[in-house]
């Protein structure tokens, strides 16, 4: 780990957080008038923008239509200026298409797609600044955007990444912590039923520690849920006030 002490003896991380402390989450719903639903989220320095269109008619080839549920179409992209190294990111490289796939899977499981047969729901997510936990920020942003669009879901989908360093699970990893190469686990959870919509893990982690890390991750997801729920309630209240009700 190249001399970097990710967890100090006093139990503090590089940015001064405790092991189970999330970064500050700030979010807004309804940031675009054009889209059916949109949201912007900041998790520490990771910033993501999500836009939802639909449910609408199938665009493109009609053969994609499913007779019993809606098609969820996702697109994940990273802005050229999102990372330290300025880089053109062409569409369709392996990493981003994998991310697109994961987002699609997550939301296919969470959205009540069977309510909209033969239609399509588009979710576009863009990372404006990458500082670790890109997938998680995307999921959280997309959840808010879908709610803004008024599309029914089983529950909130809350995602959070978790690492494991020196026998301690660290939640909501930043870029430096991710780059250190320790194990990291991304979890997308439906907080009410404690069901896992997506689970992804990288690098090496001993089986015996898995439960500990999973517990920490689901606790973190529930913390994220509390924040997101607050955001949604505030937003609805604000809208109601503006409408004069």
């Amino acid at each position, binding site marked *: 780990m190249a001399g970097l002490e990710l967890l100090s003896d006093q139990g503090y991380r590089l940015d001064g957080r405790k092991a189970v402390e999330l970064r500050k989450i700030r979010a807004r719903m309804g940031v675009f008038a054009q889209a059916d639903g949109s949201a912007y989220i900041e998790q520490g320095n990771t910033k993501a923008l999500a836009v939802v269109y639909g449910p609408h008619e199938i665009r493109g080839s009609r053969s994609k239509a499913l007779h019993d549920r809606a098609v969820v179409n996702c697109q994940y992209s990273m802005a050229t200026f999102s990372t330290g190294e300025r880089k053109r990111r062409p569409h369709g490289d392996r990493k981003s298409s994998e991310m697109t796939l994961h987002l699609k899977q997550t939301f296919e499981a969470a959205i009540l797609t069977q309510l909209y047969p033969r239609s399509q729901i588009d979710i576009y997510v863009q990372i404006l600044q990458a500082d670790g936990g890109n997938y998680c920020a995307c999921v959280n942003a997309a959840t808010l955007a879908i709610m803004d669009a008024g599309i029914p879901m089983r529950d909130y989908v809350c995602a959070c990444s978790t690492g494991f360093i020196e026998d301690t699970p660290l939640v909501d990893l930043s870029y430096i912590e991710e780059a250190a190469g320790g194990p990291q686990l991304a979890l997308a959870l439906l907080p009410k039923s404690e069901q896992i919509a997506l689970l992804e893990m990288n*690098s090496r982690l001993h089986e015996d520690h898995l439960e500990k890390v999973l517990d920490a991750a689901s606790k973190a997801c529930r913390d994220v849920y509390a924040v997101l729920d607050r955001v949604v309630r505030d937003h609805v209240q604000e809208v109601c006030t503006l409408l004069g009700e």
Partner: protein
Amino acid sequence: MREPPLSNCEKSFLLKAIQEGKRLDGRETYDYRNVKISFGTDYGCCIVELGKTRVLGQVSCELVPPKINRPTEGIIFFNLELSPMASPAFELGRQSELLVKLNRLLERCLRNSKCIDTESLCVIAGEKVWQVRVDLHLLNHEGNIIDAASIAAIVALSHFRRHDVSIQGNEVTVYTPEEREPVPLSIHHMPICVSFAFFQQGTYLLVDPSEREERVLDGLLVIAMNKHREICTIQSSGGIMLLKEQVLRCSKIAGVKVTEITELIQKALENDKNVRKEGGKCGFVESMPKQWITAFKVEKALVDMSDVEEKAEEILSRAETPAEMASKPVLWAPGTAQIGEGLESSWRDMEEEGEVEDEDDEGGIDDPTLAVSQNIDMEDIPRKQEKNSDDVIILSDSEEDEVIILEPEESRKNTRSKHYAVPSAKKATGGKKKKKKFTL
């Protein structure tokens, strides 16, 4: 070509079997298919068979300049290809979702877990490093590609030997295998993927799904592990909701399976090493079983037959006895007859009425032709009743009847004597053909 969808019938059959804890190939829920590993003549070439899924792995390497941000690390590149040879559903040269998923999983499983010491692949820092390329080709698709591919990749990598190099100043000399013995890659551990299929929203769980099972599954969980029980990758996919307990249970099962497979791999590698040392024959040709006459021999699958008889009897006893019903042919129009169920026929009623009538005035008939026909009628009636009590479907007596060509519309208008004239004439010409009663 798009894969033809599975019929509902087959789907429900498969799901029902899974519910009962049975699998088509006779495996138990947590059983893995047989793994077979064979090596090619070259180093770094192998074929891994997982049941009938077959993956060819080939490793090659070359000297390249390193990546700028990692000047002291070698490069490893993985590429899995799904050729139309494996299944007609795969198209060449298209990055399908499945392919992206599999490739990324392999990369994460083998590269991110740092199972290969990339720093040992460095020749001159910042100038020359080895680029190891692992090419995997799916030769036959019978389900669970990822497990087979991950085994093939790690086996090929551990079998591979790269050319030895020496450095003098800035001069790099690459030695041919004849000059210096090639050196193996340094491999820290062997991550192996194990797939778990979930059915019916996670109620049922199977290890190592076959192609058919893959097509009815709801969700898949892939866990890559090494024999030290370190998890290298977890990936859930498909639209199911997992619970924490399920994940933990799967990781336990994966641990057991991985230990077995690792042992097998090491044994296979050891075997191959010995064969090569002794100068024995190696290569695919040697390791493939000769299948000339026995090509179609199929290994017997163990089928649970313990309660088959009881079950059959139970089904029989539960089944309703088929309803008694007469296979009385109904003649709709000339040349059109109907046997068995259908619309209620008004003709039959009339015929029955006629029968009764016939019997009634039997005594007072003197006409010889009439008598003949009556006799036939008499013959027919008891025979018919006999048949009725028998099996339901008897077509033999209908054969006799169907040859008679009657014109119902006309015959109704005809006089009685004329009626009988027709069949009697027929009898004379047709000989064998019997006549069925018909009267007004």
